[in-house]
């Protein structure tokens, strides 16, 4: 799910974490690596009440302790924000596939 926020320069999106053991080391490394490829500032959170954290920090992403089936919210702003949110949603939705990259 990808939507443009009407009241700000943020692109936001939501995706369900399907990884069997939740946001553990390998998914967290993949997510931060991908986030770092974009210029945009990218934040994520795993519940509506939690603080937003930097999606480019593996320590912060691990600290989410997001269990399986939690909904990850993503917001980004910057030139490539739209591409960044789409790419991150795809990564989480496809369960962090192993790629050559």
């Amino acid at each position: 799910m990808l939507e443009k926020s009407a009241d700000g320069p943020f692109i936001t999106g939501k995706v369900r974490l399907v990884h069997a053991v939740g946001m553990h080391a390998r998914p967290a490394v993949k997510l931060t690596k991908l986030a770092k490829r974009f210029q945009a500032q990218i934040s994520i959170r795993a519940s509506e009440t939690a603080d937003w954290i930097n999606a480019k920090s593996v320590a912060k992403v691990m600290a989410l302790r997001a269990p399986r089936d939690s909904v990850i919210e993503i917001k980004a702003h910057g030139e490539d924000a739209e591409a960044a949110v789409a790419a991150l949603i795809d990564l989480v939705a496809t369960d962090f596939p192993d790629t050559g990259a």
Partner: protein
Amino acid sequence: MTMRADVMGLSFRGRTASIGFARGPLIRIGAGENSERAAGKPQDETLALREAIQSAAEQIAELAAAVGGEAAQILEFQVALLEDEDFLDPIFVSLGEGAPADKAWSSALDEQIADYNSASDEYLQARSSDLADLRDRVLRILRGGQAQVPKIPSGAVICADDLPPSRFLEIDWSGGGGLALLRGSPTSHVAMLARARGIPMVVQLGALPDAAIALLDGESATLELDPGAEQITLFERRREAHRKSRASARAVLRRPAPTWRGERIRLLINIQEVDDLEHADAQYADGIGLMRTEFLLSGPGGMPDEDTQFRTYDAVLHWADKRPVTIRTFDAGGDKPVAGFTPEGEANPFLGLRGLRLCLARPDLFKVQLRALARAAVRGNLKVMFPMVTVPAELEAARALFAEAVADLRAEGVGATLPELGIMVEVPAAAMAIGDFKASFFSIGSNDLAQYALACDRSNGALGTLMDPLHPAVLELIARTAEHGRRAGAPVSLCGDMASDPRCVPQLLYCGLRELSVNAPALAQIKQTIDRLSHGGSGG
């Protein structure tokens, strides 16, 4: 150090982290041992830490390139941390305030390590050893020592408190060898590495005396120190048998289910926590014969709430798809104390308020688990069993509480159902009076059953061969339970260590068991053992 004149060495039992055998000198290795560095000016300290982080990242990248595969993925997490500005910035800030680089670095890492250690999830707890690994590598560079790996003779049995993954990778395992850890965990990264490399590893051995020679048997989770000639002969026999079966065992996994005397033998797996399902062989199991839930109790906030528990159970049911999943309610107490839950000051906790006894004494906490299980029961093929049941009244009390939970949930409009209920058979009295229990299924907990029948504390290494699960009295209790199940039409399985031990499997089949629940790493070997018995042997 003690001198012994007897021919029999000491034997210690731990938990299997990786199956295999090693015989060699016992080498102890310790943690980082360099002295502290003197702090320079803030800009010098900043430069020193930058450089140390840079060289650590290079060392790890080199190591990752050399080892490849799964090991490289594990190391990627460490590299990612070294590139994490959010993580590093506060450390550099404290350097600006005059902190020495080594102290600032290690206190930041120690904080993270403590945080991971307090996680409720065993997987996250296990990540703390990756962080300790990273901490020590950067400290070694900062304090001027190159990563000095002590000279380890080929084939040694390495003994340490715990071992970080990169230390494991720096050791030359080409000549064999094994790992005996005093603490450690079967779900740690180093255990994954050891399994991937086929290096035998036994964890949670407790305190060990000094010794020259060690025999490490990753199959029965034993470490024998300064063994006598007879011990060595027996060990070599076990090793040879293991070597022969190992070669062809994994191919067996893809073959159809094994049969014995014309009956299908169902092989299920035991899991300690959800992450165990990631083991490559887990997919070949007929289901989950035992899912422990005690790991849920060890988090910092105590027991997780109903929703968190529900999600955990649901994740396992989702993985299992249509296959059965047997979840055991909290089995705390005995050798598994839980602060704030298990009673303190019991003179004899193994004979005290443990297992279902404790849950019935704490219906407030038990009810939360039962509600989560009742909700999960509508989501898959769930069965629930109670541990440490002594008399039928306990099963009925638990059933009544469970039915209450289901009724409450339905009244709240939440989907819930009562799953099939079974009991663990681990108290000899329950096995003797098995016909009195109105359970849908039975699961024999052979570790406790043997310990109670033989009056042997299973964690006491000094009892050695006296703690024999193949003792006729133990087998009699197993056979009795199996026979009752057959007559009553209630499935009986066995989920203790015996099921994962190829030497015990023939006896278990002769006792009438047709369902075994084993640790995932043992699945291939047990399947092959049964195949051999039915095809090769004179089992019929």
